[in-house]
């Protein structure tokens, strides 16, 4: 069973933007798309660790701010000719609140 943790209200993240959630083992970037969908990915670009939360969000993609790798928010995979993958985490929106999977944190603190 998934236990969900409430990390904040959706309005705290701008549309086509992201905010960071700190966990014991690194930051998670929580994205909000133009049509109010929520995604959570590790905040580390598979290329050279760029902070994905600072990238430009377009459709369901984000462009890394350091060297423009474009990643798919749903799969975490690099798009086009590029290679690479970033870990994605379950996230959902309920009544305007953003919920993250608590096991994510447990896993991380056990690691």
């Amino acid at each position: 069973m998934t236990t969900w943790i409430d990390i904040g209200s959706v309005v705290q993240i701008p549309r086509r933007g992201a905010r960071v959630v700190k966990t014991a083992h690194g930051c998670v970037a929580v994205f909000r798309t133009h049509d109010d969908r929520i995604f959570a990915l590790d905040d580390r670009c598979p290329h050279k660790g760029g902070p994905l939360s600072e990238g430009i969000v377009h459709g369901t993609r984000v462009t890394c701010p350091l060297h423009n790798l474009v990643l798919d928010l749903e799969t975490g995979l690099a798009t086009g000719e590029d290679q690479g993958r970033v870990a994605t985490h379950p996230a959902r929106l309920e009544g305007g609140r953003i919920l993250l999977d608590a096991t994510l944190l447990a896993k991380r603190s056990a690691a």
Partner: protein
Amino acid sequence: MMVQKLVVIGAGMASGRVLEHLFEDMPGAYDVTLFGAEPRGNYNRIMLSPVLSGEKTYEDIVTHDAAWYDANAVTCRFGETVTRIDRARKVVVSAKGETPYDKLLIATGSAPFMIPIAGRDLPGVMAYRDLDDTNAMVAASAKPGAKAVVIGGGLLGLEAAAGQRLRGMEVVVLHLMGHLMERQLDPAAGYLLQKDLERRGIHVHCKAQTKAILGNGKVEAVLLDDGTVYDADIVVMAVGIRPETRIATDAHLEVERGIVVSDQMITSDPDILAVGECVQHDGQLFGLVAPLYDMAKVAAKTLTAEAAAFRPQQTSTKLKVTGVDLFSAGDFAEGEGREEIVFRDPSRGVYKRLVLQDNRLIGAVIYGDTADGNWFFGLIKDKTDIAEMRETLIFGPAYQGGASADPMAAVAALPPEAEICGCNGVCKGKITEAIAGGATTLEAVRARTKASSSCGSCTGLVEQVLAVTLGDAYAAPAVKPMCPCTDLTHEDVRRLIKSQALKSMPAVMQELGWKTSCGCHSCRPALNFYLLADWPLEYRDDRQSRFVNERNHANIQKDGTYSVVPRMWGGVTSARELRAIADAADKYNVPMVKVTGGQRIDLLGVKKEDLPAMWADLNAAGMVSGHAYSKGLRTVKTCVGTEFCRFGTQDSTGLGIKLEKLLWGAWTPHKVKLGVSGCPRNCAEATCKDVGVVCVDSGYEIGVAGAAGMEVKATELLAKATTEPETIEIITAFVQLYRENARYLDRPWKWVAKVGLPWVQATVVDDLAARRALVERFEISQSVYRKDPWAEHARPEDRADWAPLADLTLEAAE
């Protein structure tokens, strides 16, 4: 069988339907008493909008008249509010006493939500819910030049706005979100709607946060958070509704957001049913009539002891404003495994977006041509497999099972008299004639026929005619599109933004046929610049379309920290500024303090969450952002000049400071750097800058288009000026011309190479009127942008936005 007593609370749309079904299913089963708070019987509430606009009268929308109540022996208690339900004794209480029931039906609808702001109780502030509200609006319109402000740009608010406008009022719509009807429409359709309403003379203000309603004894104006004030004789709040549950709550029925009902429409009390907007079924609330009518059917069955279950169905939305054609249904958010088909016809203002999942249509947004709306809605409801018709689905039922919908075939099939270019009235025959006469390129066709030479929106069609006529002999022009979202070049887009007066990003994307719903990292920053450069007063900067450095007003470093560079006007600083910089370096543990190549100091390695506090400290010492991160004015490098140097011919330091104070804050296509040297020895390296001034005895030599980055190139002489003000004017005009014309990410040297120095000289040096006009436009833009972004973002109340949204490290450690 004994006749049972049914009491109905609320004479609205849902209860009217229940009674119709009940009398049909089992006439005479109940002795009905109908309470209504409004002093009238059931009427078609959704048709209040045509009553407001004058297209219908109240009599036209009455659904049940006195004869009908008579025929069905309904005891009407209109104008009587039920104040209490006594479940133990099975009676309802109203001002005129008690009325007993065997079965009770609650159908109290919704209450409009009123935002709790100052002034909301002033006379003239109202909701839009019933006939009285409608009549109040009609009465307000009697005064010549009356002004209405509608708060809320959803379905109701817009119908109120359109109706009042048709009654001759001046109408402003204030909407909190970025586009109208955001729950039913995506931004592209919202933009088209806004344009349509504005064409009707309704002023729409999105992202409007209402702060207070002003007035002395009656409403006079509405004040927004940003300080805007709109005069108002009447204010209509249409910001949402809440289920009207008060009597149910008082009677201790189970009530969450609405009165909780089962699939049979029974509340937590087996003798009490509820239908309509006041209920909550399976966690869901309702705001449109279609599902309420289904509830009514079920409630009638339950009352006659027949089995039935309510299942909410999909709903679709239409806005009832004559001449506005929009339709939305289903779920149209992007999502995993979902695909979209977008069709835009800018010349007709048509936009269609279909969302597919597993070969099924699950959502549709249509604007401008909604004839096929119901067909799409049917496909959604029936979950039809559309695999077979996928290619032509968006063209609607007319194209199914018929000829192929290949656009080329469609163009080939057009008759010679079909119009291709609307602006210049050019038909297909004229174009094929020109092609036969040797015009084999777009340019040649343009030159001979004028087709696609005005607004340019038919360019694609003209190219298709070329392709169809010439076949393989046609070589499509090898222009490089701006990005994969469009086939247009940067130059085309800049031209069209100006010629078609496109003033927002959705406007550009719609009118120019963007292929994606919200652009990409490559086009969005460029569009954002073009729009703010061309419409400085109308366009609002879109922060989310900016590259990280410009969004965070600092340069990101490879480890995710930032560098902070305060401005040092003309490279001059003071002990006080240096002290403040040193203090900031200590306070925020700055790992490196470096003197830059641009005559100022860089604090490198600052954490994002420290930025606002650090800026506030630097602001307190009188320093502002150095924009070391922006496509904008960077530095004006100077030398010491006549003030100190034995060779100086003019005050180069002073001129540099004046230029920097004039130009700072302006956004440009790429970064802009200036240098001012006091004599030809050129200690400020002015001859390799974007703009460089070399002072001489007779005045100022202004050079432009230098480079010293990946390319190294000396400046070219733009003009020689004799006075400082003339020098400043020419440089300002040059910068503005560059802002208005260059493509995004071209430094001035690249742009000048494309347009030619002679044209630049003719415009900013020789043509005095053009020069002055450029300077004036620059000043207009600076009235918005000559502001310190650090000060704007350093406010204590905004600081949380710069820190992580949540810190779970502590919880995980527990």
